[in-house]
Structures are given as structure tokens and as C-alpha cells.
């Protein structure tokens, strides 16, 4: 933590908002890998109706996660001292992740 520059706030020398924004990007990439693996599982398993439905759910949860990430990234980019992540956003991101895992369990067994 370096000291704030005297005479007004120009730029955080630690680039905290940028790093946090990139962390969100990395996390959406991880989610994309999981969603692509879900699609592969369905396509290789012979694409039954139930399989395609669960796959559609996976894509929906992936999109939900992207939405949360996108709104947070916009907040982080807009201000140089952005507001704290709200528990509701954190919960939404986590619920999408858990739902993806539940879909995975349904696809695998």
C-alpha cells in the first residue's frame, strides 16, 4: 500500500480496480471452460432430450455469471474508488457456480 499522491487523486499506483477487473475476466474464462466441457459431455453422450435441457440450463447459468461479471466490471471501470462488491452479486455468482456443478452431476451420473 503506497501513500496517496498529494493534491488530488490521480491514479491508484497499485492498479487495484484494474486487477480486480482482470480477476473477474479470468473467472469468466474458467466458467466458460466448465460450460464448454458440459456441452462436450452432452454431445458425446448422444444428445438426449434430457441432456440437451440440462445443457441449456448450463448455458443459462453461464450467461447469468457473465451478466454479474459484466455489471461488476462496468462498476470497476467507471470510478477510481469503486463501491464494494455487494453480497447479492457475490451470492449470484456463487449460485451460478453451484448450479453448474449440480447440472454436471446430473449429466455425469
Amino acid at each position, binding site marked *: 500500500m503506497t501513500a496517496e499522491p498529494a493534491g488530488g487523486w490521480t491514479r491508484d499506483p497499485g492498479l487495484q480496480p484494474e486487477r480486480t477487473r482482470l480477476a473477474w475476466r479470468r473467472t469468466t474464462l474458467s466458467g466458460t471452460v466448465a460450460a464448454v466441457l458440459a456441452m462436450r459431455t452432452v454431445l458425446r453422450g448422444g444428445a438426449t432430450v434430457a441432456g440437451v435441457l440440462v445443457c441449456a440450463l448450463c448455458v443459462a447459468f453461464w450467461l447469468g455469471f457473465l451478466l454479474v461479471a459484466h455489471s461488476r466490471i462496468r462498476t470497476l471501470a467507471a470510478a477510481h474508488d469503486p463501491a464494494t462488491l455487494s453480497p447479492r452479486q457475490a451470492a449470484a455468482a456463487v449460485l451460478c457456480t453451484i448450479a453448474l*456443478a449440480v447440472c454436471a452431476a446430473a449429466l455425469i451420473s
Partner: protein
Amino acid sequence: MIDLARNVRLWFAPQKIRDEGTTPDYRFSLANERTFLAWLRTALALIGGGFAVDQFLPDLRWGWRVGLALALLAAGVLCSLRAVNHWLRCERAMRRGEDLPVSRFPALLSLVVAIVALAMVFVVLVGWEG
């Protein structure tokens, strides 16, 4: 983990978190957020690992394959739940000016990953085509 139920109410009532203490330096909150995201990535990687075991070890016996995959998926669910719970606890501790909470979860997760990895080695050496 016992106070998880109490914290779940806070997830959906975000204004309550602002009732306590004072707002910390935004950089500390952002660091806390990045830690939360790192745990979430770990959870997503575990979920991806569950898919990968199912998809890329097709010669494995059904029981082993599904068992290992479900173990990885369960670890992913636990990891993501813990991520949000720990994030909230850290955020509240920072607002109140308390010490950050300690946790034995990293040690537990390391043990689980080590056990799954050993099981994979065993399965690949012995259980193949079993």
C-alpha cells in the same frame, strides 16, 4: 461454517452489512474481492475437473469414474460456498476493525485434492480396464 446460515441472510440483505462499523479503504475491499474470485476460480476448476474425469477417462470402470467426478464436483460446490462465506466474514471483520478470520478450509481442500490425486494414480495404474 456454523455461522453460514446467519450469513446467508446477509447475502440477500446487502444494506445490513453497511450498518456495522466503518467502510474500509476500498483497496482492502478490492483485495478481498480478488481473493473471493480466486476461490471461485478454484471451484470452477474443480467442476471442470469433474467433467474432465468423466470425459477423458472413458476406459475407467463406471463406479470409479462417476465416484471421482462426483467427489470433484462436491469439492467445487463446497469451495464456492466457502468462498462467499469467507468473503463476507472478511468484509465484516474489516468494517469492525477486527482481525481477519482464520480458516482450516485451505488445509482441508489440500487434503481432499491430494486424496483425489492419489486415487487417480491408483486407478490409472490398477483399475484401468478393471
